[in-house]
């Protein structure tokens, strides 16, 4: 027996919704089996993971907060991945974005009078730092043909060590007993809160606006068109006269800028100071989000919310049901695997044919 894949003529919109839904169902079922093996009722686990976080205003805000950087970074990455450029260093671009913007906040610490310009400058500095940092692998690729997968990844470690050094050394709070953290930013250097309770900050709006903007750019502009054509058919792009080098730089700039912006939004929003680590792995999780969302900005938004939901639900499950954190991770991996597998339904008709594999 062998699996045969027959391409579908057009994308079936029905399958495009059915496939991820089926994938979700399959992972939930398999997850349920794993949960019962650990001696916990699957219905209770389902409630803890998927319903409890949605039933409280606070946890809804937290989901939005967690999803925002993921969606923002993943949206940027979608431009790269659509064009078959493999920037996997968003984590590093996020970190330098947070660091650069944070430096602006620290340099302007204590400014009196007109301070309205500080926050926009921070956001701009973060974005710019992300772009510049992403330019390293992009330029190396364009000029020398060095694999961007490798350089962008290596630069993640370098960025993390740079932040670590800065937070423990030059930028640390002089009154803080030499503990590794900067002073807390002034209010003028913080993103405003959107609701009572000091949880939801304006970074969420930034992320949402970026997703909308990306949807328009990707779908309705020449640049978006070029990205899509290069991804779908590099030959056609070459015949059309699109410059691969220019596109590479542009796509890296978009993803680096998005990651840098997410970084400074996180620092100016949630954290409010510089510390040795500012990311719980957003840059890497965003890669998963990008593919879960199948590289379309609206899909990415949904995917980011799902990942945020399971992460926060996973914490609830740890507290209430003693389900280990590793289970949440395994579930997220499983979900992505199923979504990718199910994606085949939207692209191909799958047939089992007798005979050996070829």
């Amino acid at each position, binding site marked *: 027996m062998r699996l045969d894949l027959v391409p579908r003529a057009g994308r079936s919109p029905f399958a495009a919704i059915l496939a991820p839904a089926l994938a979700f169902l399959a992972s939930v079922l398999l997850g349920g089996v794993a949960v019962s093996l650990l001696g916990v009722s699957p219905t209770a686990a389902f409630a803890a993971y998927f319903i409890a976080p949605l039933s409280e205003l606070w946890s809804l805000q*937290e989901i939005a907060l967690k999803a925002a950087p993921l969606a923002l970074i993943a949206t940027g990455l979608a431009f790269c991945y659509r064009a078959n450029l493999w920037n996997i260093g968003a984590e590093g671009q996020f970190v330098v974005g947070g660091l650069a913007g944070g430096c602006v906040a620290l340099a302007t610490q204590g400014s009196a009078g007109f301070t309205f310009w500080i926050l926009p400058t921070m956001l701009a500095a973060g974005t710019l730092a992300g772009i510049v940092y992403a330019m390293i692998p992009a330029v190396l690729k364009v000029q020398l043909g060095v694999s961007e997968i490798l350089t962008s990844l290596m630069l993640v470690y370098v960025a993390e060590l740079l932040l*670590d050094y800065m937070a423990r050394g030059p930028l640390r709070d002089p009154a803080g007993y030499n503990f590794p953290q900067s002073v807390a930013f002034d209010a003028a250097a913080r993103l405003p809160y959107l609701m009572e309770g000091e949880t939801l900050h304006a970074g969420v709006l930034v992320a949402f606006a970026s997703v909308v903007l990306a949807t328009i750019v990707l779908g309705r502009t020449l640049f978006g068109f070029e990205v899509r054509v290069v991804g779908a058919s590099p030959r056609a792009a070459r015949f059309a006269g699109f410059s691969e080098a220019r596109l590479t730089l542009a796509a890296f700039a978009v993803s680096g800028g998005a990651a840098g912006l997410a970084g400074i939004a996180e620092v100016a929003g949630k954290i409010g100071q510089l510390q040795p680590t500012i990311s719980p792995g957003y840059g890497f999780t965003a890669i998963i989000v990008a593919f879960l969302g199948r590289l379309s900005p609206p899909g990415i938004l949904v995917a980011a919310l799902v990942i945020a939901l399971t992460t926060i639900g996973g914490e609830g499950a740890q507290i209430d049901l003693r389900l280990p954190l590793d289970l949440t991770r395994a579930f997220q991996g499983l979900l992505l695997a199923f979504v990718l597998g199910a994606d085949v339904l939207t692209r191909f008709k799958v047939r089992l044919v007798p005979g050996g594999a070829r």
Partner: protein
Amino acid sequence: MRHSFCACLGAFLLLLGPAQAEGKLKVGFVYVGPVADYGYSFQHDLSRKALAEAMPDKVETTYLENVPEADSERAIEKLARSGMGLIFTTSFGFMEPTLKVAKKFPTVKFEHATGYKRAANVSTYSARFYEGRYVCGKIAAKLSKTGTVGYIASFPIPEVVSGINAFMLGAQSVNPNVKVKIVWVNTWFDPGKEAEAAKALLAQGADILTQHTDSAAPLQEAEKQGKLAFGQSSDQYRFAPKAQLTAIVDDWNGYVISEAKAVLDGSWKSHDTWGGIKDGLVVLAPFTNMPADVKAMAEDTVKAIAAGRTHPFAGPVTKQDGTVAVKDGETAPDPMILGMNWYVKGIDDKLPQ
């Protein structure tokens, strides 16, 4: 419509949720690492288990592990919202988030480990690990044949730096010419890298290792090469029965239990606890793999520290640059130890400033 939906959902959750006995104090713990690290977080989790065992009908415990510092505010608030009455946040990096959540939940008591900022409902606690390091330094200087000790350090924060200094002062009290070689691995936990650091130090002539990282890898490396070493955070004897001299064990059991009791009987107040050997927060694992006289010396030192007769930072203490940090006849005040960012004389390494 919307409200009734929420109400139904709530009822549904109540039905599904685990039955919770009324009147029990719920105690939550937030760990920065996995409870399976067999080091710092593991040791903290032992105290959670000890608490649950000590008062099974009065408390209920739970924890969140592997909480990244950048994500800790949500984890702490989640615990506060889950009806916890007492929450232990066990890493320095949780300081600001703990304070922020504490402000929102004034009736919940918080205990933050190794920090320095407090509030009406936030206590801080830590252990004088440096006392144990002083004892280790003395043992090392006595037993080292090459006169060189290897020190695997994580990050240059005051706790680690004061540990290095105390170790050196202890060692110098036995052998003024002892050398300490320091390797910063920039991680709390990476067995492979810790093992490599151990190998590098052993290759450069160190015959005794000590570490301020969490895994048992350096101990095992010492054991493999027939050298000696000290355990960290928990008693790691089982990993290296022929190499472990002793281990500086964090014993939070007594503290955690007494704090829970204080919350239960209403006597809890915000305070700062910085306990050492005397208070049972720092415990030295049984002295092994050493001759009787060294063992006796170590035990005497432990007793002397507990009785207050010996202080690791008793003057005169001279800094690397020759200036006097602590005058003869005085001992270093706590704020100096808490914020230590200089080396004592004799250490051949530079601290990042």
